[in-house]
Protein backbone atom coordinates (compact mmCIF):
# COMPACT_ATOMS: atom_id res chain seq x y z
CA UNK A 1 0.00 0.00 0.00
CA UNK A 2 2.80 2.32 0.92
CA UNK A 3 4.62 1.52 -2.31
CA UNK A 4 1.58 2.37 -4.39
CA UNK A 5 0.98 5.59 -2.49
CA UNK A 6 4.49 6.90 -3.04
CA UNK A 7 5.20 9.03 -6.07
CA UNK A 8 8.35 7.24 -7.15
CA UNK A 9 9.15 9.70 -9.88
CA UNK A 10 9.18 12.62 -7.48
CA UNK A 11 11.01 10.62 -4.87
CA UNK A 12 13.79 9.71 -7.26
CA UNK A 13 13.90 13.25 -8.59
CA UNK A 14 14.42 14.51 -5.06
CA UNK A 15 17.01 11.82 -4.40
CA UNK A 16 19.06 12.51 -7.51
CA UNK A 17 18.76 16.27 -7.07
CA UNK A 18 19.94 15.92 -3.48
CA UNK A 19 22.90 13.76 -4.47
CA UNK A 20 23.82 16.23 -7.20
CA UNK A 21 23.75 19.21 -4.86
CA UNK A 22 25.39 17.56 -1.87
CA UNK A 23 28.30 16.23 -3.87
CA UNK A 24 28.66 19.48 -5.78
CA UNK A 25 29.12 21.15 -2.40
CA UNK A 26 31.47 18.37 -1.36
CA UNK A 27 33.64 19.20 -4.38
CA UNK A 28 33.79 22.74 -3.12
CA UNK A 29 34.81 21.90 0.43
CA UNK A 30 37.34 19.14 -0.21
CA UNK A 31 41.03 19.84 -0.52
CA UNK A 32 42.10 16.45 -1.88
CA UNK A 33 42.19 16.49 -5.69
CA UNK A 34 41.25 12.87 -6.20
CA UNK A 35 38.37 12.98 -3.75
CA UNK A 36 37.23 16.15 -5.46
CA UNK A 37 37.15 14.36 -8.80
CA UNK A 38 35.31 11.46 -7.23
CA UNK A 39 32.63 13.74 -5.80
CA UNK A 40 32.39 15.51 -9.14
CA UNK A 41 31.83 12.19 -10.88
CA UNK A 42 29.05 11.32 -8.43
CA UNK A 43 27.46 14.72 -8.88
CA UNK A 44 27.58 14.46 -12.68
CA UNK A 45 26.37 10.88 -12.58
CA UNK A 46 23.36 11.92 -10.51
CA UNK A 47 22.68 14.65 -13.08
CA UNK A 48 22.55 11.98 -15.76
CA UNK A 49 20.13 10.16 -13.48
CA UNK A 50 17.94 13.26 -13.64
CA UNK A 51 18.10 13.11 -17.44
CA UNK A 52 17.07 9.46 -17.43
CA UNK A 53 14.23 10.33 -15.10
CA UNK A 54 13.08 12.97 -17.57
CA UNK A 55 13.06 10.37 -20.34
CA UNK A 56 16.01 11.93 -22.14
CA UNK A 57 18.01 8.73 -22.33
CA UNK A 58 20.30 9.87 -25.08
CA UNK A 59 21.28 13.02 -23.21
CA UNK A 60 21.70 10.97 -20.04
CA UNK A 61 24.03 8.51 -21.72
CA UNK A 62 25.87 11.47 -23.30
CA UNK A 63 26.25 13.00 -19.86
CA UNK A 64 27.76 9.77 -18.58
CA UNK A 65 30.01 9.33 -21.58
CA UNK A 66 31.30 12.87 -21.93
CA UNK A 67 31.20 14.50 -18.52
CA UNK A 68 31.77 11.52 -16.26
CA UNK A 69 34.23 9.93 -18.68
CA UNK A 70 35.89 13.29 -19.20
CA UNK A 71 36.30 13.83 -15.48
CA UNK A 72 37.85 10.40 -15.33
CA UNK A 73 40.50 11.35 -17.85
CA UNK A 74 40.97 14.64 -16.03
CA UNK A 75 41.54 12.70 -12.85
CA UNK A 76 44.05 10.40 -14.48
CA UNK A 77 46.06 13.26 -15.90
CA UNK A 78 45.62 15.29 -12.76
CA UNK A 79 47.17 12.54 -10.71
CA UNK A 80 49.76 11.51 -13.27
CA UNK A 81 51.05 14.95 -14.19
CA UNK A 82 50.56 17.07 -11.10
CA UNK A 83 50.81 14.84 -8.06
CA UNK A 84 54.39 14.91 -6.86
CA UNK A 85 53.54 13.55 -3.46
CA UNK A 86 50.79 11.21 -2.35
CA UNK A 87 47.35 12.55 -1.49
CA UNK A 88 48.02 16.00 -2.89
CA UNK A 89 45.82 18.60 -1.29
CA UNK A 90 44.90 21.96 -2.64
CA UNK A 91 44.99 25.14 -0.60
CA UNK A 92 42.71 27.78 -1.96
CA UNK A 93 43.63 31.34 -1.08
CA UNK A 94 41.07 33.87 0.12
CA UNK A 95 41.41 35.88 -3.10
CA UNK A 96 40.54 32.85 -5.19
CA UNK A 97 37.49 32.24 -3.02
CA UNK A 98 36.27 35.78 -3.56
CA UNK A 99 36.77 35.71 -7.34
CA UNK A 100 35.22 32.26 -7.65
CA UNK A 101 32.26 33.27 -5.49
CA UNK A 102 31.73 36.38 -7.64
CA UNK A 103 31.85 34.50 -10.95
CA UNK A 104 29.77 31.61 -9.64
CA UNK A 105 27.24 33.92 -8.04
CA UNK A 106 26.78 35.90 -11.28
CA UNK A 107 26.28 32.68 -13.23
CA UNK A 108 23.81 31.36 -10.68
CA UNK A 109 21.84 34.60 -10.72
CA UNK A 110 21.75 34.57 -14.52
CA UNK A 111 20.62 30.94 -14.68
CA UNK A 112 17.97 31.41 -11.99
CA UNK A 113 16.67 34.50 -13.76
CA UNK A 114 16.44 32.69 -17.10
CA UNK A 115 14.91 29.59 -15.55
CA UNK A 116 12.08 31.55 -13.94
CA UNK A 117 11.47 33.58 -17.08
CA UNK A 118 10.34 30.54 -19.09
CA UNK A 119 6.60 30.31 -18.49
CA UNK A 120 6.34 26.65 -19.47
CA UNK A 121 8.71 25.70 -16.67
CA UNK A 122 6.89 27.40 -13.86
CA UNK A 123 3.31 26.47 -14.71
CA UNK A 124 2.12 22.88 -14.54
CA UNK A 125 1.15 21.38 -17.87
CA UNK A 126 -2.64 21.36 -17.97
CA UNK A 127 -2.75 18.66 -20.62
CA UNK A 128 -0.49 16.07 -19.01
CA UNK A 129 -2.11 13.13 -20.78
CA UNK A 130 -1.14 14.41 -24.20
CA UNK A 131 2.53 15.07 -23.65
CA UNK A 132 4.27 13.33 -26.52
CA UNK A 133 6.68 11.35 -24.39
CA UNK A 134 7.49 8.72 -26.97
CA UNK A 135 8.47 11.32 -29.54
CA UNK A 136 10.72 13.17 -27.15
CA UNK A 137 12.50 9.94 -26.34
CA UNK A 138 14.06 9.33 -29.71
CA UNK A 139 17.28 10.75 -31.01
CA UNK A 140 16.13 10.52 -34.62
CA UNK A 141 15.35 14.19 -34.86
CA UNK A 142 18.77 15.28 -33.68
CA UNK A 143 20.44 12.69 -35.87
CA UNK A 144 18.54 13.73 -38.97
CA UNK A 145 18.93 17.40 -38.19
CA UNK A 146 22.68 16.88 -38.01
CA UNK A 147 22.64 15.80 -41.63
CA UNK A 148 20.35 18.65 -42.65
CA UNK A 149 16.87 17.12 -42.53
CA UNK A 150 14.89 19.07 -39.98
CA UNK A 151 12.07 16.73 -38.97
CA UNK A 152 11.15 19.07 -36.14
CA UNK A 153 10.38 21.89 -38.56
CA UNK A 154 8.10 20.03 -40.95
CA UNK A 155 5.21 22.29 -39.99
CA UNK A 156 6.98 25.21 -41.58
CA UNK A 157 4.39 26.22 -44.20
CA UNK A 158 6.78 27.99 -46.51
CA UNK A 159 8.18 25.55 -49.06
CA UNK A 160 11.27 27.63 -49.81
CA UNK A 161 12.15 28.08 -46.17
CA UNK A 162 11.67 24.40 -45.45
CA UNK A 163 14.11 23.25 -48.12
CA UNK A 164 16.68 25.85 -47.10
CA UNK A 165 16.80 24.98 -43.42
CA UNK A 166 20.30 24.10 -42.42
CA UNK A 167 21.43 21.18 -40.32
CA UNK A 168 23.71 21.17 -37.33
CA UNK A 169 26.67 19.64 -39.10
CA UNK A 170 28.64 22.82 -39.77
CA UNK A 171 28.42 24.27 -36.24
CA UNK A 172 29.20 20.81 -34.90
CA UNK A 173 32.33 20.54 -37.02
CA UNK A 174 33.42 24.06 -36.06
CA UNK A 175 33.06 23.21 -32.38
CA UNK A 176 34.96 19.96 -32.76
CA UNK A 177 37.80 21.66 -34.61
CA UNK A 178 38.01 24.13 -31.74
CA UNK A 179 38.23 21.27 -29.30
CA UNK A 180 40.91 19.63 -31.39
CA UNK A 181 42.93 22.84 -31.33
CA UNK A 182 42.60 22.99 -27.55
CA UNK A 183 43.71 19.36 -27.25
CA UNK A 184 46.74 19.85 -29.46
CA UNK A 185 47.63 23.00 -27.55
CA UNK A 186 47.35 21.19 -24.22
CA UNK A 187 49.48 18.31 -25.45
CA UNK A 188 52.08 20.74 -26.79
CA UNK A 189 52.26 22.65 -23.54
CA UNK A 190 52.57 19.47 -21.50
CA UNK A 191 55.39 18.26 -23.73
CA UNK A 192 57.44 21.42 -23.70
CA UNK A 193 57.23 21.60 -19.94
CA UNK A 194 58.71 18.14 -19.60
CA UNK A 195 61.49 18.99 -22.07
CA UNK A 196 62.39 22.14 -20.17
CA UNK A 197 62.55 20.13 -16.96
CA UNK A 198 64.88 17.66 -18.57
CA UNK A 199 67.18 20.38 -19.83
CA UNK A 200 67.27 21.98 -16.39
CA UNK A 201 67.86 18.70 -14.64
Amino acid at each position, binding site marked *: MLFAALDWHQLFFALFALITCVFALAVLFTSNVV*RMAFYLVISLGATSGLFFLAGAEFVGAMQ*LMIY*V*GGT*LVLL*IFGVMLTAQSRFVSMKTSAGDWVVAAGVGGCLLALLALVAFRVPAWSEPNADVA*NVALAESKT*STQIGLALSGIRVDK*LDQPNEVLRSGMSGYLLPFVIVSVHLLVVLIGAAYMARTKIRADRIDG
Partner: protein
Amino acid sequence: MGGCKRWPTASKLIAKEDITPGEADRFLFKIAPYVSFTASYAAYLALPFADGWVANQVNTAVFFVLAVLGLEVFGVILAGYGSGSKWSLFGAMREAAQVVSYEVPLGMCVVVPVLICGTMNLVTIGNMQAGWFTNWLVFHDPFTFVVFWVYFTCAVASVNRAPFDLAEAESELVAGFHTEYSGLRWSFFFMAEYGSMFLVSGLASILFFGGWHGPIPVFDILGWSYLQGEEGFRVLGFLATAAGCVNFMLKAVVGVTVMIWVRWTLPRLRIDQVITTCLKYCVPLAAVCFVFVVLWQVAEIPFLNDAMPVRAAVEVVEDGETGPDIVTRGGKSYRVAYGKGAVREAWVLQAERAAESVDETTPADEDAVASQVKRAGGAG
Protein backbone atom coordinates in the same frame (compact mmCIF):
# COMPACT_ATOMS: atom_id res chain seq x y z
CA MET B 1 31.36 -32.08 -7.94
CA GLY B 2 33.06 -28.93 -9.04
CA GLY B 3 29.80 -27.10 -8.68
CA CYS B 4 29.89 -27.52 -4.90
CA LYS B 5 33.25 -25.83 -4.62
CA ARG B 6 31.74 -22.38 -5.14
CA TRP B 7 29.93 -22.44 -1.79
CA PRO B 8 32.99 -22.91 0.42
CA THR B 9 34.84 -20.42 -1.80
CA ALA B 10 32.11 -17.85 -1.43
CA SER B 11 31.81 -18.33 2.33
CA LYS B 12 35.58 -18.11 2.62
CA LEU B 13 35.57 -14.78 0.78
CA ILE B 14 32.78 -13.44 2.95
CA ALA B 15 34.39 -14.61 6.16
CA LYS B 16 37.91 -13.37 5.37
CA GLU B 17 39.23 -10.42 7.27
CA ASP B 18 38.81 -7.14 5.47
CA ILE B 19 42.05 -5.25 5.88
CA THR B 20 42.59 -1.56 5.18
CA PRO B 21 46.25 -0.57 4.91
CA GLY B 22 47.43 2.18 7.23
CA GLU B 23 48.69 4.31 4.35
CA ALA B 24 45.40 4.15 2.50
CA ASP B 25 42.89 6.89 1.84
CA ARG B 26 40.27 5.01 3.81
CA PHE B 27 37.17 6.45 2.18
CA LEU B 28 38.28 5.93 -1.43
CA PHE B 29 39.76 2.55 -0.58
CA LYS B 30 36.50 1.32 0.87
CA ILE B 31 34.23 2.72 -1.81
CA ALA B 32 36.27 1.72 -4.91
CA PRO B 33 35.02 -1.92 -5.20
CA TYR B 34 31.44 -0.75 -5.10
CA VAL B 35 32.06 1.77 -7.89
CA SER B 36 33.42 -0.96 -10.15
CA PHE B 37 30.67 -3.35 -9.22
CA THR B 38 27.87 -0.83 -9.71
CA ALA B 39 29.19 0.34 -13.08
CA SER B 40 29.52 -3.20 -14.36
CA TYR B 41 26.08 -4.35 -13.28
CA ALA B 42 24.21 -1.13 -14.05
CA ALA B 43 24.94 -1.76 -17.72
CA TYR B 44 22.70 -4.86 -17.52
CA LEU B 45 19.75 -2.47 -17.22
CA ALA B 46 19.73 -2.00 -20.96
CA LEU B 47 20.91 -5.43 -22.08
CA PRO B 48 18.08 -7.51 -23.58
CA PHE B 49 18.14 -11.24 -22.95
CA ALA B 50 15.40 -12.08 -25.46
CA ASP B 51 12.89 -10.24 -27.58
CA GLY B 52 11.32 -7.83 -25.12
CA TRP B 53 13.04 -9.42 -22.10
CA VAL B 54 14.94 -6.38 -21.00
CA ALA B 55 14.87 -4.48 -17.75
CA ASN B 56 14.57 -1.09 -19.38
CA GLN B 57 14.22 -0.72 -23.09
CA VAL B 58 16.42 2.26 -23.82
CA ASN B 59 16.32 3.69 -27.32
CA THR B 60 20.05 4.29 -27.20
CA ALA B 61 20.91 1.04 -25.42
CA VAL B 62 24.23 0.47 -27.19
CA PHE B 63 25.42 3.89 -26.20
CA PHE B 64 24.15 3.48 -22.65
CA VAL B 65 25.92 0.15 -22.18
CA LEU B 66 29.22 1.54 -23.45
CA ALA B 67 28.91 4.70 -21.36
CA VAL B 68 28.18 2.82 -18.15
CA LEU B 69 30.74 0.12 -18.79
CA GLY B 70 33.39 2.79 -19.26
CA LEU B 71 32.84 3.85 -15.65
CA GLU B 72 34.14 0.54 -14.34
CA VAL B 73 37.70 1.73 -14.75
CA PHE B 74 36.93 4.52 -12.32
CA GLY B 75 36.71 2.05 -9.46
CA VAL B 76 40.03 0.57 -10.49
CA ILE B 77 41.72 3.97 -10.53
CA LEU B 78 40.25 4.88 -7.15
CA ALA B 79 41.43 1.55 -5.79
CA GLY B 80 44.92 2.07 -7.15
CA TYR B 81 45.14 5.57 -5.78
CA GLY B 82 43.40 4.95 -2.49
CA SER B 83 45.45 1.90 -1.56
CA GLY B 84 48.48 4.04 -0.90
CA SER B 85 50.71 1.42 -2.48
CA LYS B 86 53.06 1.77 -5.45
CA TRP B 87 51.99 -1.52 -6.99
CA SER B 88 48.38 -0.47 -6.88
CA LEU B 89 49.06 2.96 -8.36
CA PHE B 90 51.10 1.47 -11.21
CA GLY B 91 48.34 -1.02 -11.91
CA ALA B 92 45.70 1.68 -11.93
CA MET B 93 47.69 3.92 -14.27
CA ARG B 94 48.27 1.08 -16.69
CA GLU B 95 44.59 0.24 -16.60
CA ALA B 96 43.69 3.87 -17.21
CA ALA B 97 45.99 4.17 -20.22
CA GLN B 98 44.73 0.89 -21.62
CA VAL B 99 41.03 1.48 -21.17
CA VAL B 100 41.12 5.03 -22.48
CA SER B 101 42.89 3.86 -25.64
CA TYR B 102 40.74 0.80 -26.20
CA GLU B 103 37.46 2.64 -25.95
CA VAL B 104 38.25 4.30 -29.29
CA PRO B 105 38.38 1.15 -31.49
CA LEU B 106 35.65 -0.47 -29.38
CA GLY B 107 33.32 2.43 -30.13
CA MET B 108 34.22 2.29 -33.82
CA CYS B 109 33.41 -1.43 -33.99
CA VAL B 110 30.09 -0.93 -32.23
CA VAL B 111 29.14 1.80 -34.69
CA VAL B 112 29.21 -0.69 -37.58
CA PRO B 113 26.17 -2.79 -36.53
CA VAL B 114 24.44 0.41 -35.46
CA LEU B 115 25.06 1.77 -38.93
CA ILE B 116 23.75 -1.32 -40.69
CA CYS B 117 20.62 -1.55 -38.55
CA GLY B 118 19.99 2.18 -38.37
CA THR B 119 19.18 2.02 -34.67
CA MET B 120 20.89 1.99 -31.29
CA ASN B 121 18.08 -0.03 -29.74
CA LEU B 122 19.55 -3.43 -28.89
CA VAL B 123 16.16 -5.17 -29.08
CA THR B 124 15.64 -3.90 -32.60
CA ILE B 125 19.18 -4.75 -33.64
CA GLY B 126 18.56 -8.29 -32.38
CA ASN B 127 15.21 -8.55 -34.13
CA MET B 128 16.63 -7.36 -37.42
CA GLN B 129 18.83 -10.45 -37.46
CA ALA B 130 15.87 -12.81 -37.34
CA GLY B 131 15.83 -15.85 -39.56
CA TRP B 132 18.70 -18.00 -40.69
CA PHE B 133 22.22 -17.51 -39.41
CA THR B 134 23.19 -15.92 -42.71
CA ASN B 135 21.28 -12.87 -41.58
CA TRP B 136 23.55 -12.40 -38.57
CA LEU B 137 25.51 -9.22 -38.94
CA VAL B 138 28.83 -11.03 -38.66
CA PHE B 139 27.94 -12.59 -42.04
CA HIS B 140 26.55 -9.35 -43.44
CA ASP B 141 29.71 -8.82 -45.45
CA PRO B 142 33.40 -9.76 -45.11
CA PHE B 143 34.19 -6.52 -43.32
CA THR B 144 31.75 -7.01 -40.48
CA PHE B 145 33.41 -10.36 -39.97
CA VAL B 146 36.73 -8.57 -39.47
CA VAL B 147 35.05 -5.94 -37.30
CA PHE B 148 33.78 -8.65 -34.98
CA TRP B 149 37.32 -9.86 -34.26
CA VAL B 150 38.52 -6.33 -33.68
CA TYR B 151 35.55 -5.82 -31.35
CA PHE B 152 36.36 -8.98 -29.45
CA THR B 153 40.01 -8.03 -29.03
CA CYS B 154 39.08 -4.57 -27.79
CA ALA B 155 36.39 -6.00 -25.52
CA VAL B 156 38.94 -8.34 -23.91
CA ALA B 157 41.23 -5.36 -23.42
CA SER B 158 38.54 -3.11 -22.04
CA VAL B 159 37.45 -5.66 -19.44
CA ASN B 160 41.08 -6.05 -18.50
CA ARG B 161 41.53 -9.75 -19.21
CA ALA B 162 44.65 -11.60 -20.32
CA PRO B 163 46.57 -11.03 -22.54
CA PHE B 164 45.70 -7.43 -21.66
CA ASP B 165 45.64 -7.81 -17.86
CA LEU B 166 48.45 -5.38 -17.25
CA ALA B 167 46.63 -3.76 -14.37
CA GLU B 168 47.02 -7.00 -12.43
CA ALA B 169 50.26 -8.39 -13.89
CA GLU B 170 51.00 -10.63 -10.93
CA SER B 171 54.53 -11.35 -12.18
CA GLU B 172 55.48 -7.66 -11.97
CA LEU B 173 53.02 -5.81 -9.75
CA VAL B 174 52.09 -8.45 -7.11
CA ALA B 175 48.39 -8.10 -7.97
CA GLY B 176 48.20 -4.62 -9.45
CA PHE B 177 45.32 -2.45 -8.37
CA HIS B 178 43.87 -5.01 -5.96
CA THR B 179 47.11 -5.82 -4.15
CA GLU B 180 45.81 -4.41 -0.88
CA TYR B 181 42.32 -5.83 -1.08
CA SER B 182 41.13 -8.90 0.70
CA GLY B 183 37.92 -10.73 1.44
CA LEU B 184 34.65 -9.45 0.12
CA ARG B 185 35.99 -6.21 -1.34
CA TRP B 186 38.41 -8.17 -3.47
CA SER B 187 35.61 -10.40 -4.66
CA PHE B 188 33.55 -7.35 -5.60
CA PHE B 189 36.26 -6.46 -8.11
CA PHE B 190 36.11 -9.92 -9.53
CA MET B 191 32.34 -10.01 -9.68
CA ALA B 192 32.61 -6.76 -11.63
CA GLU B 193 35.22 -8.23 -13.95
CA TYR B 194 33.24 -11.37 -14.71
CA GLY B 195 30.06 -9.36 -14.96
CA SER B 196 31.58 -7.14 -17.62
CA MET B 197 33.02 -10.15 -19.42
CA PHE B 198 29.52 -11.56 -19.78
CA LEU B 199 28.23 -8.12 -20.70
CA VAL B 200 30.65 -7.51 -23.57
CA SER B 201 30.12 -11.06 -24.80
CA GLY B 202 26.37 -10.58 -24.67
CA LEU B 203 26.75 -7.30 -26.51
CA ALA B 204 28.83 -9.10 -29.15
CA SER B 205 26.18 -11.77 -29.51
CA ILE B 206 23.47 -9.16 -30.05
CA LEU B 207 25.50 -6.91 -32.32
CA PHE B 208 27.07 -9.62 -34.46
CA PHE B 209 25.54 -13.03 -33.78
CA GLY B 210 21.81 -12.48 -33.92
CA GLY B 211 21.27 -12.24 -30.17
CA TRP B 212 18.37 -14.49 -29.24
CA HIS B 213 17.88 -15.89 -32.75
CA GLY B 214 19.29 -19.36 -33.25
CA PRO B 215 21.15 -20.36 -36.41
CA ILE B 216 18.01 -22.03 -37.73
CA PRO B 217 14.70 -20.27 -37.06
CA VAL B 218 13.04 -23.40 -35.65
CA PHE B 219 10.36 -21.61 -33.68
CA ASP B 220 9.47 -19.31 -36.56
CA ILE B 221 9.04 -22.34 -38.84
CA LEU B 222 6.94 -24.10 -36.21
CA GLY B 223 4.97 -20.91 -35.78
CA TRP B 224 5.51 -20.76 -32.01
CA SER B 225 7.09 -17.33 -31.81
CA TYR B 226 4.98 -14.33 -30.92
CA LEU B 227 3.67 -12.58 -33.99
CA GLN B 228 4.11 -8.89 -34.54
CA GLY B 229 2.03 -6.68 -32.33
CA GLU B 230 0.72 -9.71 -30.48
CA GLU B 231 -0.54 -8.90 -27.02
CA GLY B 232 -1.19 -11.32 -24.22
CA PHE B 233 0.37 -14.61 -23.25
CA ARG B 234 0.75 -17.87 -25.16
CA VAL B 235 2.59 -20.85 -23.68
CA LEU B 236 4.27 -21.70 -26.98
CA GLY B 237 5.19 -18.09 -27.58
CA PHE B 238 6.66 -17.89 -24.09
CA LEU B 239 8.63 -21.09 -24.77
CA ALA B 240 9.97 -19.65 -28.02
CA THR B 241 11.08 -16.48 -26.21
CA ALA B 242 12.62 -18.55 -23.41
CA ALA B 243 14.50 -20.59 -26.00
CA GLY B 244 15.69 -17.29 -27.43
CA CYS B 245 16.96 -16.34 -23.99
CA VAL B 246 18.83 -19.67 -23.78
CA ASN B 247 20.27 -18.96 -27.23
CA PHE B 248 21.51 -15.59 -26.11
CA MET B 249 23.00 -16.96 -22.89
CA LEU B 250 24.75 -19.75 -24.78
CA LYS B 251 26.34 -17.29 -27.19
CA ALA B 252 27.45 -15.03 -24.37
CA VAL B 253 28.84 -17.99 -22.40
CA VAL B 254 30.82 -19.06 -25.45
CA GLY B 255 32.31 -15.56 -25.53
CA VAL B 256 33.23 -15.73 -21.84
CA THR B 257 34.69 -19.21 -22.32
CA VAL B 258 36.87 -17.97 -25.17
CA MET B 259 38.11 -15.16 -22.90
CA ILE B 260 39.07 -17.67 -20.20
CA TRP B 261 40.62 -19.94 -22.78
CA VAL B 262 42.68 -17.05 -24.20
CA ARG B 263 43.90 -16.29 -20.68
CA TRP B 264 45.31 -19.81 -20.41
CA THR B 265 46.82 -19.71 -23.86
CA LEU B 266 48.45 -16.37 -24.54
CA PRO B 267 51.24 -14.65 -22.61
CA ARG B 268 50.72 -11.16 -21.28
CA LEU B 269 51.64 -8.26 -23.54
CA ARG B 270 53.91 -5.42 -22.50
CA ILE B 271 52.30 -2.01 -22.07
CA ASP B 272 53.90 -0.66 -25.27
CA GLN B 273 52.67 -3.72 -27.16
CA VAL B 274 49.20 -3.20 -25.75
CA ILE B 275 49.11 0.41 -26.91
CA THR B 276 50.64 -0.54 -30.28
CA THR B 277 47.97 -3.20 -30.81
CA CYS B 278 45.33 -0.63 -30.12
CA LEU B 279 46.59 2.39 -32.02
CA LYS B 280 48.48 0.81 -34.90
CA TYR B 281 46.26 -2.18 -35.62
CA CYS B 282 42.81 -2.02 -34.04
CA VAL B 283 41.98 1.62 -34.76
CA PRO B 284 43.04 1.62 -38.45
CA LEU B 285 41.45 -1.79 -39.01
CA ALA B 286 38.18 -0.68 -37.45
CA ALA B 287 38.23 2.59 -39.39
CA VAL B 288 38.95 0.93 -42.75
CA CYS B 289 36.30 -1.72 -42.14
CA PHE B 290 33.85 0.99 -41.17
CA VAL B 291 34.41 2.77 -44.49
CA PHE B 292 34.08 -0.45 -46.49
CA VAL B 293 30.94 -1.49 -44.66
CA VAL B 294 29.45 1.87 -45.58
CA LEU B 295 30.45 1.37 -49.21
CA TRP B 296 29.03 -2.16 -49.12
CA GLN B 297 25.76 -0.81 -47.78
CA VAL B 298 25.60 1.96 -50.36
CA ALA B 299 26.47 -0.31 -53.28
CA GLU B 300 24.02 -2.97 -52.01
CA ILE B 301 26.40 -5.77 -52.91
CA PRO B 302 24.79 -9.17 -52.28
CA PHE B 303 26.35 -11.59 -49.83
CA LEU B 304 25.51 -14.87 -48.09
CA ASN B 305 22.05 -13.85 -47.00
CA ASP B 306 20.99 -12.96 -50.52
CA ALA B 307 21.56 -16.56 -51.57
CA MET B 308 18.81 -17.64 -49.16
CA PRO B 309 15.36 -18.19 -50.62
CA VAL B 310 13.66 -16.23 -47.86
CA ARG B 311 15.33 -13.20 -46.47
CA ALA B 312 14.76 -11.74 -43.09
CA ALA B 313 14.46 -8.43 -41.38
CA VAL B 314 13.91 -6.08 -44.23
CA GLU B 315 10.93 -4.25 -42.97
CA VAL B 316 10.76 -3.29 -39.35
CA VAL B 317 7.21 -2.58 -38.40
CA GLU B 318 6.20 -0.11 -35.79
CA ASP B 319 5.16 -1.30 -32.37
CA GLY B 320 1.56 -2.41 -32.41
CA GLU B 321 1.20 -2.38 -36.17
CA THR B 322 0.16 -5.60 -37.85
CA GLY B 323 0.79 -6.90 -41.31
CA PRO B 324 1.63 -10.00 -43.31
CA ASP B 325 4.43 -12.28 -42.22
CA ILE B 326 6.12 -12.34 -45.58
CA VAL B 327 5.91 -9.58 -48.14
CA THR B 328 6.93 -9.67 -51.75
CA ARG B 329 8.79 -6.77 -53.25
CA GLY B 330 10.20 -6.83 -56.75
CA GLY B 331 9.87 -10.58 -57.16
CA LYS B 332 11.71 -11.38 -53.94
CA SER B 333 10.06 -12.42 -50.74
CA TYR B 334 11.07 -10.78 -47.53
CA ARG B 335 10.36 -11.88 -44.01
CA VAL B 336 9.08 -9.07 -41.89
CA ALA B 337 10.85 -8.52 -38.60
CA TYR B 338 8.83 -7.05 -35.84
CA GLY B 339 10.23 -4.88 -33.14
CA LYS B 340 8.29 -5.39 -29.99
CA GLY B 341 10.05 -2.27 -28.96
CA ALA B 342 10.14 1.10 -30.56
CA VAL B 343 11.90 1.23 -33.88
CA ARG B 344 11.51 4.88 -34.58
CA GLU B 345 15.20 5.44 -35.07
CA ALA B 346 15.21 3.08 -38.00
CA TRP B 347 12.93 5.26 -40.01
CA VAL B 348 14.29 7.34 -42.74
CA LEU B 349 12.11 10.25 -43.52
CA GLN B 350 10.09 10.31 -46.65
CA ALA B 351 9.96 14.02 -46.39
CA GLU B 352 7.79 14.83 -49.34
CA ARG B 353 5.03 12.47 -48.26
CA ALA B 354 5.00 13.91 -44.80
CA ALA B 355 5.16 17.41 -46.21
CA GLU B 356 2.13 16.76 -48.42
CA SER B 357 -0.01 16.03 -45.43
CA VAL B 358 1.36 18.91 -43.40
CA ASP B 359 -1.25 21.37 -44.64
CA GLU B 360 -4.20 19.47 -43.28
CA THR B 361 -2.40 18.17 -40.23
CA THR B 362 -4.35 18.40 -37.05
CA PRO B 363 -3.14 16.97 -33.75
CA ALA B 364 -5.17 13.84 -34.41
CA ASP B 365 -3.43 13.40 -37.75
CA GLU B 366 0.04 13.34 -36.33
CA ASP B 367 -0.02 9.59 -35.97
CA ALA B 368 -0.92 9.30 -39.62
CA VAL B 369 2.09 11.41 -40.56
CA ALA B 370 4.30 9.31 -38.33
CA SER B 371 3.15 6.08 -39.89
CA GLN B 372 4.00 7.42 -43.32
CA VAL B 373 7.55 7.79 -42.17
CA LYS B 374 8.79 4.36 -42.99
CA ARG B 375 12.10 2.75 -43.01
CA ALA B 376 13.70 2.75 -46.41
CA GLY B 377 16.94 1.31 -47.68
CA GLY B 378 18.45 -1.36 -45.47
CA ALA B 379 18.98 -4.70 -47.11
CA GLY B 380 16.33 -3.93 -49.70
